[in-house]
């Protein structure tokens, strides 16, 4: 490569000279600088030299960009050079600001390079990006379509999340733009917004629908990205669109789109692929919806004639869809045939996909895989590692699935195939295999068949196959496989009369001498020997093994060697300790799942000052606590919510308080003081900036004092006062119930909207509706919530309601509820990250009670 470039570059100067007579040669010399840079780089021999050169280059760029005489055009060229350096991994952060400037001030052409540099250099969290917002705003309003396009492209690549509201209306407006390309880019930009800040674009879902129905198929295609994502998150919400998607697919498949959308005479293949993906999401576990799409799926299968790569892509999606949705037998049959074609294909990519499809399908139809067993075995020998890996994964899956047919005896694959397959899997899978696969294989083998004769045959076959493997080249086998072999030989080799115990011990001994045997494997081997060694013939060998390993540095090995020594000398003891597996009773170990036998130990430990056991969710909560103060406030609120429920008893509270361990976190300087001085009632309505701080009534003052007391005791020294604290809190919540409502009403709907947009943490959840005789379900549910959790209902509009609550001052949480079928779809937002989740949890609990 370097040769080529060098030649080219030596040729360059003469070419450049030829145009040198023209005006603007100064610019030319700068443009050749990229050339000389590249030439120099390709001449280098070491990374170190490259580094030196690039550093030199960067410093020259640095000089020039900061020079006031540098024109925008030169700047553009400098940017390209900086892009080159960045691509090689060198930091050129000093150019970032100039990239922004170029996007801001350059002519269209320079602007394009500026935007490009910005999108390559910066990430969405970069502070400089804020400087770009105005430029984007301006360009979005430009009459030059190319500028609008550039702006849309850059916002879909990087845009600061917080600034989305500023440009959102402009981007939305573009959805109605007469030019198709602009509408299309606007759709994708909005999708990007949806990804990074879903709450910002919530209100324009209707516009997405409009984009789906756009007269231009390209715009429709772009909106499919959005729907694929939305449906993935919530398939239930878009079932009504199934018919639309089916109709669109019908039109596409039927060739109703303009010819421009054809690719190798296949109509809009990428759109077809996306539609099929969407349909499979919609039809999953839904017979009704699946019914709607059966016809078009059949048509797609039929239309996609096998002639080009891209039709295989469609077929593959189609097959996946057919196997995902509610099954229909004749479709499944066709899909199975299709998979067969993939698997048998001579094209390696198709084979790979066929295999992937098989892996997907065997879960429903293991027989299909068995049809292809020969191909599968062949593929294990395939030179492509990726194919090999896929196939061994498939085999593992098959094996798991085979447990059922074996047990039912409805379908018995032959033993030989099974054992051989597993041998292949173990040899290939090697160390990368999951341990549970090994375990389930061993379990399967030891449980075996119901029929004694079949069972014996399977085990004997396994023993024979392993003996011959060990007689071959055992050093080539992976450790895990050797462990399996050792175990099987130890347990079952006595079933095979033709192979004497001494032969087995000899073979096992060979494993001990192999250089690459790990001590884990050796442990398995020694255990197997202990089970096998019988009769005088093995004694000398066993003796020498014992001697070698009783002085091993590995304690486990030493232990096993001791066991081997003792048990091999005392056959009676051995028979008692290790009865042959077939005479063993099924294991029925009595298990005390309450662990009551540990009670004494626990109480002793507690008495000695150990911390009580915390269930994992609680530990996680505490872990989260260390993240920051907001969590502590959250705990505080949880506690308050907890307290407002009448059924809370003192003991529960005191124990939960002890567990909080909040004191530690609150010990951090500064914060505690500020918070303790101004604690505010937890459920006291909306944001203070909106509620204008309610005038303090005497009740308020009283409760405030109590809260201060509560807060200070909670945060500063809780241990001695938990009981008193409870009484305080109780009075507090009771007195406070009267005061909170009037402050709540201060949160107006309009303010609500502003607040909603400014909060970044959100959670969505469906809650069960409460049904009541004299009220609608929405009102009844809200009543329960307001009663139990003291939420404040701001407004109810038809089937929707907006609700607010507040934890501490500055920590409001807003809730939007909508009746959706049998559920109440709630959407919570708050500036405190953990608050929405916490509140959801309490809502669920409150509603469960009814």
């Amino acid at each position: 490569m370097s040769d080529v470039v060098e030649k080219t570059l030596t040729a360059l100067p003469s070419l450049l000279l030829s145009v040198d007579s023209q005006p603007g040669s100064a610019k030319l010399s700068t443009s050749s600088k990229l050339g000389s840079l590249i030439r120099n780089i390709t001449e280098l021999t070491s990374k170190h030299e490259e580094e030196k050169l690039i550093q030199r280059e960067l410093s020259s760029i640095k000089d020039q960009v900061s020079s006031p005489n540098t024109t925008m055009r030169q700047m553009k060229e400098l940017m390209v050079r900086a892009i080159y350096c960045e691509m090689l991994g060198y930091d050129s952060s000093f150019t970032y600001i100039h990239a922004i400037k170029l996007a801001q001030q350059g002519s269209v052409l320079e602007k394009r390079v500026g935007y490009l540099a910005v999108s390559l250099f910066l990430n969405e969290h970069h502070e400089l990006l804020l400087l770009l917002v105005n430029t984007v705003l301006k360009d979005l309003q430009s009459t030059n379509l190319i500028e609008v396009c550039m702006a849309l492209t850059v916002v879909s690549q990087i845009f600061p999340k917080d600034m989305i509201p500023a440009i959102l209306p402009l981007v939305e407006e573009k959805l109605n733009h007469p030019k198709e390309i602009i509408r299309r880019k606007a759709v994708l930009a909005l999708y990007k917004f949806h990804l990074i800040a879903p709450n910002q674009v919530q209100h324009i879902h209707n516009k997405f629908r409009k984009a789906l129905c756009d007269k231009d198929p390209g715009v429709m295609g772009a909106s499919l990205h959005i729907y694929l994502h939305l449906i993935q998150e919530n398939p239930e919400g878009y079932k009504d669109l199934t018919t639309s998607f089916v109709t669109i697919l019908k039109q596409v498949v039927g060739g109703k789109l303009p010819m421009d959308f054809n690719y190798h005479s296949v109509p809009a293949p990428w759109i077809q692929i996306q539609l099929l993906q969407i349909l499979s999401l919609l039809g999953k576990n839904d017979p009704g919806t699946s019914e709607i799409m059966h016809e078009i799926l059949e048509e797609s299968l039929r239309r996609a004639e096998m002639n080009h790569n891209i039709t295989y892509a469609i077929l593959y999606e189609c097959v996946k869809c057919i196997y995902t949705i509610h099954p229909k037998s004749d479709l499944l049959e066709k899909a199975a045939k299709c998979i067969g074609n993939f698997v048998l294909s001579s094209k390696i990519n198709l084979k790979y996909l066929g295999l992937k499809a098989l892996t997907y399908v065997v879960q429903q139809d293991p027989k299909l895989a068995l049809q292809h067993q020969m191909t599968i075995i062949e593929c294990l020998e395939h030179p492509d590692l990726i194919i090999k890996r896929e196939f061994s994964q498939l085999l593992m899956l098959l094996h798991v699935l085979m447990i059922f047919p074996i047990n039912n005896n409805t379908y018995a694959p032959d033993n030989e195939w099974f054992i051989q397959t597993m041998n292949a899997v173990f040899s290939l899978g090697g160390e990368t295999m999951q341990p549970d696969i090994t375990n389930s294989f061993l379990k399967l083998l030891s449980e075996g068949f119901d029929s004694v004769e079949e069972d014996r045959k399977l085990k004997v076959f396994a023993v024979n196959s392993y003996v011959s493997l060990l007689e071959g080249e055992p050093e080539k086998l992976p450790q895990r496989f050797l462990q399996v072999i050792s175990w099987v030989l130890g347990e079952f080799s006595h079933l095979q009369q033709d192979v004497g115990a001494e032969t087995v011990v000899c073979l096992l001994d060979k494993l001990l001498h192999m250089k690459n045997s790990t001590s884990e494997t050796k442990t398995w081997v020694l255990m197997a020997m202990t089970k096998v060694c019988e009769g005088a013939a093995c004694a000398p060998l066993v003796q020498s093994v014992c001697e070698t390993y009783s002085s091993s540095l590995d304690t486990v090995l030493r232990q096993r060697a001791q066991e081997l020594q003792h048990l091999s000398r005392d056959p009676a003891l051995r028979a008692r300790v290790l009865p042959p597996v077939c005479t063993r009773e099924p294991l029925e170990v009595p298990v005390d799942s309450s662990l009551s036998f540990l009670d004494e130990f626990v109480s002793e430990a507690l008495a000695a000052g150990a911390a009580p056991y915390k269930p994992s969710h609680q530990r996680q909560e505490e872990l989260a606590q260390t993240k920051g103060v907001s969590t502590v406030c959250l705990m505080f609120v949880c506690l308050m919510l907890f307290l407002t429920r009448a059924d809370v008893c003192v003991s529960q509270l005191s124990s939960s308080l002890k567990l909080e361990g909040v004191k530690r976190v609150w010990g951090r300087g500064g914060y505690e003081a500020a918070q303790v001085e101004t604690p505010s009632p937890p459920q006291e309505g909306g944001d203070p900036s909106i509620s204008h701080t309610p005038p303090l009534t005497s009740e308020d003052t009283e409760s405030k004092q109590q809260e201060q007391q509560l807060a200070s005791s909670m945060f500063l020294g809780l241990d001695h006062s938990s009981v008193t604290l409870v009484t305080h809190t109780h009075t507090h919540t009771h007195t406070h119930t009267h005061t909170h409502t009037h402050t709540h009403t201060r949160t107006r709907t309009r303010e609500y909207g502003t607040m909603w947009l400014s909060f970044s943490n959100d959670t969505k959840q469906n809650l069960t509706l409460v049904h009541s005789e004299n009220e609608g379900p929405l009102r009844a549910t809200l009543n329960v919530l307001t009663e139990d959790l003291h939420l404040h209902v701001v407004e109810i509009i038809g089937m929707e309601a907006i609700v607010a609550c507040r934890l501490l001052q500055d920590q409001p949480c807003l809730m939007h509820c909508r009746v959706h079928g049998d559920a109440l779809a709630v959407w919570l937002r708050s500036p405190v990250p953990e608050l929405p989740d916490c509140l959801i949890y309490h809502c669920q609990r409150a509603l469960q009670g009814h």
Partner: protein
Amino acid sequence: MIRAILIFNNHGKPRLSKFYEHYTEDTEQQIIRETFHLVSKRDENVCNFLEGGMLIGGSDYKLIYRHYATLYFVFCVDSSESELGILDLIQVFVETLDKCFENVCELDLIFHVDKVHNILAEMVMGGMVLETNMNEIIMQVDAQNKMEKSEAGIAGAPARAVSAVKNMNLPEMPRNINIGDISIKVPNLPSFK
């Protein structure tokens, strides 16, 4: 979604890197190295898909690549993308480059990294496939180039220089990426050796 698009040559030198997700500078370089390492080890007659490397997201990700003469084109995508669909998208990309640069070669990618990015931006936007029709992409790029010609004047010289070099007789030099027989098969075409 497409997470990253990488082009590097047979020696692992990056020729274009575009990430649609934020990674640190170091991670990006590691991803390029790791991807090159994974891809370059593979024979010509194996499949064009790879399970993703560790850095770019583990098992949910896959690498789909094509190898043309001196260059590897690698798309790192998540599990929702269709393998074969992306494979053809790479083909569309390369064909488009070929049209725009008139027999594209590695040099074009070096000298016009910005143009290559612009072509790519018409095809993939923010990680989503925007346009798959080559003519449409070229139309968009042309519209921008027209403006460039009127604006640039002499700045177009390097382009002319490169194309002049391309037409000179340099036997060892791969003239173009050689996109080969586009209608039939996917495999990498061993062309210029």
